[in-house]
């Protein structure tokens, strides 16, 4: 186990290094540059801009320069947001994505597991069918449909919640709709996984024994079935957590949340090389860490899993 963790932690920087290198060159290979605009740039100005952002040196030299800065944890200046560094942008936006992502995850778990457990324990009944139909809806309705619909009803028609905005935990009302929108597809997945996992366990011999012993249904489900049934959910949580944390372009735009998701997409569109690389590094790290944690939790919950 310890061995496994150490191995994973050792591979971590290597993976990040490859990720960084790949991004560095790929983003520079894309046609169009950060300073292109419909109006042509004076060659004097273009030269000065390249000089300022170290873009006129040969590529390997630029790469070493960037690598050196990365080791110092300095991701460089943003080309687009001229008065702001990439570090600052990430520091300003990533915590917001984290907050929204964590809330959505809790919400997804609560909704998804509840629906899954009920569906499994009432297998092949009216409730089961309804829960699963809803989960198909949750999976298939994209955020760009759900978000404006929620806004329309909760904010415009019923005036229950604000349209859009963000003020952290200080004004939680702003967080409700985006967290709900973000969590629904995940909740749907979790519901299906929970149901599937539990059904598998519920058909096993030890459950039948427990039933025969006269164990209460609630105890049986909570104590025995749930534990085994949650395995697929835990495996899914790793990538799901990463996906939720990294934010969503649509939700951030529609609900006006200053998160990392739109920084990443716009940086790519703007050819803001440093900001693209910076956000990719954050995403990469997050994904690796989340997968590692999910592996560990799996091993802890299910003694059969050994690394």
């Amino acid at each position, binding site marked *: 186990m310890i061995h496994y963790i150490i191995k994973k932690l050792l591979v971590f920087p290597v993976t990040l290094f490859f990720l960084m290198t790949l991004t560095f060159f790929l983003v520079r290979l894309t046609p*169009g540059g950060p300073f292109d605009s419909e*109006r042509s*740039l004076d060659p004097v100005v273009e030269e000065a801009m390249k000089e300022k952002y170290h873009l006129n040196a040969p590529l390997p030299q630029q790469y070493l320069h960037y690598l050196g800065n990365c080791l110092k944890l300095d991701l460089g200046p943003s080309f687009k947001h001229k008065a702001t560094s990439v570090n600052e942008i990430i520091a300003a936006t990533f915590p917001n994505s984290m907050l929204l992502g964590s809330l959505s995850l809790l919400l997804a778990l609560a909704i998804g597991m509840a629906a899954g457990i009920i569906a499994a324990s009432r297998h092949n009944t009216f409730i089961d069918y309804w829960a699963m139909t809803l989960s198909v809806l949750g999976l298939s309705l994209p955020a760009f449909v759900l978000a*404006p619909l929620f806004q329309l009803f909760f904010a415009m028609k019923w005036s229950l919640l604000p349209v*859009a905005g963000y003020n952290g935990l200080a004004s939680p009302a702003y967080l409700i709709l985006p967290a709900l929108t973000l969590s629904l597809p995940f909740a749907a997945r979790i519901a299906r996984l929970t149901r599937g996992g539990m059904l598998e366990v519920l058909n096993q011999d030890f459950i039948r024994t427990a039933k025969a012993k006269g164990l209460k249904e609630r105890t049986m489900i909570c104590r025995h079935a749930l534990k085994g049934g949650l395995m697929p959910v835990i495996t899914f949580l790793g990538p799901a957590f990463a996906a939720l944390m990294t934010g969503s372009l649509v939700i951030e735009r529609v609900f006006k949340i*200053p998160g990392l998701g739109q920084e990443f997409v716009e940086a790519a569109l703007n050819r803001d090389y440093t900001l693209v690389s910076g956000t990719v590094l954050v995403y990469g790290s997050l994904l690796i860490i989340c997968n590692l944690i999910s592996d560990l939790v799996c091993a802890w919950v299910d003694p059969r899993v050994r690394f």
Partner: protein
Amino acid sequence: MKYTNSQLARNCFKILLAFLLASIPSVYSSSKISKNTIPTNWQVKYQPKNNSWQKVKQNFYYYAVDPETLDPALITGSNEMRMAEALFEGLLTYDPKTLEARPGVASSWTVQNEGKLYTFTIRKNALWSDGTKLTSHDFYHSWQRVLEAKTAASYAMQLYPIDGAEKYHKGQIKDFKKVGISCPDKHTLVVRLKQACPYFTDLAAFVTLYPTPIHVIQKYGDRWVRPEHIVSNGPFILKDWQHRQKLIMQKSSHYWAKENVKLNHVTALLQSDLETAYKLFLKGQLHWMDDIPLDKLEELLYRPEYYVMPFLGVYFYRFNVNKVPFNDSRVRRAFSLAIDRLSITQQVTKAGQRPHSHFCPPMNDFTAITGPAHNPQKARMLLEQAGYGKGGKVFPEVELLYNTSEGHKKIAEAIVQQWEDELGVQVSLRNSEWKVFLNDMKQMNYDICRSSWIGDYADPNTYYDLFITDGGNNRTGWSHEVYDDLLKKSTYTSNPSLRISYFQQMEKILSHEENPIIPIYQYVNQGLLQQNVNGWYVNNRDIHPFKYIWLDRELAK
């Protein structure tokens, strides 16, 4: 249709300014000193008629995008210009209605030497927001900073009319004292121009020529525009700037005309989604949005808050004249004549865009000669003369390139259909992402491509200058000796009517004879403005200084 190429494009190239009208009487009034003729009541005219506004909370909210920078020397987008206009003030300012030059930091100015020598008198009560005095030396050093290559100011060329400025910027002269800017004393700034420039008073009100606090820049470098460091000289100061959330500007206590500023706070809600902004507007949380969600147009047309006004920008197509078949001007003309522009603006863009087949949009005292009318018959004839059509050569495969956007796509589809119907030629469509598109246009990797141009100042020169041989913005490969010669002559003449006749001749070459481009329509600006907003005026450059605005009542919830 405008802005559909994303806010990117909108930031990068939607640029305003300058007015010919105001300066002409003073510039060309012979060699003797001419003093500006500003009506003394101009400022009074824009004040509220009663005091009811004082009972209203003067907090104004508007839709904006996170600014790239707030450094006037580096600003290129209209979004940033609007903020800089609140925070800073140039020598001169724009009249909010007519856009004529009005006093700013300079209380008056004189023009001598056939429009080549400007003397600005800096007002004695001009202050920076940290309380230090603003003097003529601040302008001297700020303009020097813009012209230093290492500053990388994209709009340094706005200073090029000044004698020696271009050479200094390009490193051809090293001594800034040789550039035509001097300060005889703290309150006088003398500017010597290369040649008479009828729009110089307008440039003096443009963002690139604003003073910047060198004493602060030296201390903090690039980061001087952060809210904790910034020092400015305008009607408002920067209170807070939260990345992608909001930017709050507060009325300044150091501004020389602070009595006339009525808004206490101006908050830019930094937003990118127009649909959401529209919902916030409906909820009364925004007073102004300068753009609309296009799919809501039909619904908005009936709202009292909706406004639409002509804008100094042109939507057009470029030809690659280096490639067959568009190396033949007859083919290019045929393609232009075959387009029914009215149907495009009425059935596709629908917001009241003005269709025209000439290039330069109308501005104050200049209206370009009308371009050729829709004439499919003549178009077919020209195409036949060029050797295509029945019994002639087969028309080669050509492509129309545009940047990915629903709006551009609809226009392109309509035009391609008209070409097919009228000329019987097939033109295929190709779209690409914005930066890829720009790259293709720059490399001239296209046959026909979508383009637009928003003037850098409201003088025809900013339009006709585009198609000079090998000009950086030409991008068609087109070169015409007579045209180049006319352009040169127009720059050097000090006779206004002669100048205009040169422009008309250039227009004739562009849209009647050679057609390296197909002009399609003039842009409009459309947006939403709450009905309690006063002091906001319609003009063709979308300039609405916050210092004139006030709210006359609270919004009904």
